């Protein structure tokens, strides 16, 4: 269809292309007074509505952080639940301003899908979960030859699964569903032997099964799944704001700035902290981004630093109890490294 279309209207379209300069997302967002944030339809720890319909999780909190940076108020954000299939179109079409939906950063998504990834808010890897009670003796993914594996469609998970079994010359039986809830239900009812998705997800899903204690997550990690928020390509200012919000969260943790002590820290004489919190005389790092100078203060007041966000949503302070692991700061042997604000 588009071939014909391109042939018929190509010339006319090219003439118009010149005028199609992108209106800045920051201006649009400021004008409407809130950020529209695309999240998942419900993945515990990342983005899931609670009983009152408030979105909880690390992905939801990241959007609040961006809202705090822009408006000084973390509540100026509206959430759009999206399925795996819809997420990219929603961002491309401008329905949402930022996609914060446990999305894996891949080259194809950067190049062919028109996405611009902000960073990696959670280093994940794909794993397997099995029912240890029904399958005693299975303690490695390499023993899964011939198994029926539940997986969600339209994800990188589905592709990794195919690659992994092919590489190890094992047979398997894919059982593919569109929605997370459906995969959960099918796995819980015994339709599959194993469940595969990002390991963080497996821990969250385990809690929703009818007898969580029976299920174990196998040790193998079969892929790299750097999860992070993404914005539309071609709007550098907006991408910078999102990216530096993420770095600010990391830097705040590194500097020991927390939600509780951020006001005291404003009086700190450490130049690093001063630059970060915008208390340095005639520093204008916030203003250069198109924000206010106390943007980091606002972020930390709204959601805390990266460590606090992590612990509250997926770490020790949450039912998921996931260890920091490679998501620890670089100073503690992890991969999270925030370039300096200066």
């Amino acid at each position, binding site marked *: 269809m588009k071939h014909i279309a391109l042939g018929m209207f190509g010339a*006319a379209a090219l003439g118009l292309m010149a005028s199609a300069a992108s209106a800045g997302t920051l201006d649009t967002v400021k004008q409407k007074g809130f950020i529209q944030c695309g999240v998942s339809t419900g993945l515990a720890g990342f983005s899931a509505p609670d009983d009152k319909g408030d979105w909880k999780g690390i992905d939801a909190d990241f959007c609040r952080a961006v809202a705090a940076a822009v408006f000084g108020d973390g509540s100026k954000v509206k959430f759009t639940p999206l399925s795996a299939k819809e997420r990219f179109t929603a961002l*491309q079409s401008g329905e949402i301003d930022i996609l914060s939906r446990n999305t894996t950063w891949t080259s194809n998504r950067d190049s062919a899908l028109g996405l611009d990834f902000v960073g990696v808010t959670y280093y994940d890897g794909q794993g397997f979960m099995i029912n240890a009670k029904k399958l005693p003796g299975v303690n490695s993914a390499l023993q899964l030859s011939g198994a029926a594996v539940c997986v969600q469609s339209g994800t990188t998970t589905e592709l990794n699964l195919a690659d992994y079994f092919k590489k190890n010359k094992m047979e398997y039986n894919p059982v593919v569903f569109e929605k997370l809830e459906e995969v959960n239900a099918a796995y819980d*009812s015994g339709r599959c032997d194993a469940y595969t998705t990002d390991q963080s997800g497996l821990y969250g899903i385990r809690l929703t099964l009818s007898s969580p204690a029976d299920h174990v997550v196998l040790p193998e990690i079969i892929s790299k799944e750097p999860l992070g928020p993404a914005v539309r390509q071609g709007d550098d200012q907006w991408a910078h704001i999102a990216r530096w919000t993420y770095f600010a969260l990391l830097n705040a943790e590194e500097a020991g700035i927390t939600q509780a002590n951020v006001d005291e820290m404003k009086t700190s004489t450490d130049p690093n902290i001063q630059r970060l919190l915008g208390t340095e005389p005639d520093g204008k790092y916030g203003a250069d981004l198109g924000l206010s100078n106390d943007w980091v203060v606002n972020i930390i007041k709204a959601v805390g630093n990266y460590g606090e966000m992590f612990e509250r949503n997926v770490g020790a302070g949450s039912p998921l109890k996931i260890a920091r692991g490679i998501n620890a700061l670089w100073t503690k042997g992890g991969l999270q490294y925030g370039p300096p604000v200066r």
Partner: protein
Amino acid sequence: MASQEILRQEPGRGSFINDPKIRALFFQTLVVIVLFVSIWWIVNNVIENLQRLHIASGFQFLRNRAGFDISDTPIAYTSDATYGRALIVGLLNTIIVAAAGIVLATIVGFIIGIGRLSQNWLIRKICTVYVEIFRNIPPLLVIFFWYSGVLAVLPPPRESYHLPFGSFLNQRGFYFPRGVWGDGSWLVLVAFVVGLAMAWFVAHRARQRQMATGQQFPVFWTSVGLIVGLPVLAFLLAGMPLTFDFPKQSTFNLTGGFQIKPEFLSLLLALSFYTAAFIAEIVRAGIKGVSKGQSEAAAALGLRSGPILRLVVIPQAMRIVIPPLTSQYLNLTKNSSLAIAIGYPDLTATAGTVLNQTGQAVEGVFLMMIAYLVLSLVTSAVMNVVNARMALVER
């Protein structure tokens, strides 16, 4: 309309703008202009959006490696196959489930429909309750019910039900031995085709003879003999070139044999039972629509109740039944797209995955629409032929 014909004869009457011909021309030109402008606007927007977002376009992606696996593959497919092949697999799955569903729904629907007209009060009531329940809940819910029901009732693979002929039934589906044809099996196929052709020929001649002389010929049993007998003969002559591959228990599942997955099973059952409720009502209306005088007249001619039903009532009822039956078949085919909710890889599900992996939404949705349109058109065309034949019987 009539009015315009009259007016056309007196063109001089009334003012220029009241001339219906001019008006029609004006309206249609307006419609065409509006249409073209909006198409131009949409296409322009699409092109602009795609270029701005650096999204690839065109159908080249169909030749790229798919990279994902599909659970039900009627034709050979691996993750190394192309997106195009993945879509074909999805299309075939849609056709398979729709065809099987149409057959099953027709059978169940006729049984229930006739049951609603039964002399027996209890049967009548049971059939009414069935129809009223299934007609009034969404098909998606029926599918969920069957799926969770099927999974809840059946045992895990290690405690499978053992059925006769080496078949098994468990949560992973229904397993039965698969025939493996050896050398010389082509003979059986040839015999089958020859049998079919001969049966058709016999039926044709018998009809001609009956038309000419009124003598009847046992067409049915001759045909059965030809269609079944010839292949059996060929099978024996070729030295019985058939072995069976029996399903065997392995670590996780049964391997070998032929497997019908629970997704397919529950989708098939749900679609057929849902559609059967509508077909039952159509059948009931059809049978009630044949006037009682017809069967009484047939009885007066000395026909027994069997032939009355077969030769008088059903042919006339079918005339009433077929057009709405066609639209139910179309509905069933379209409802098979709900497979996506329980993970049966039909066209919508695979196209959805392809669309998501490549990001080419416009092409994906376009292909999907074309495929369903073609399926619908083919089904209507086939049913129109059937309808035409039925109408001929009426003379």
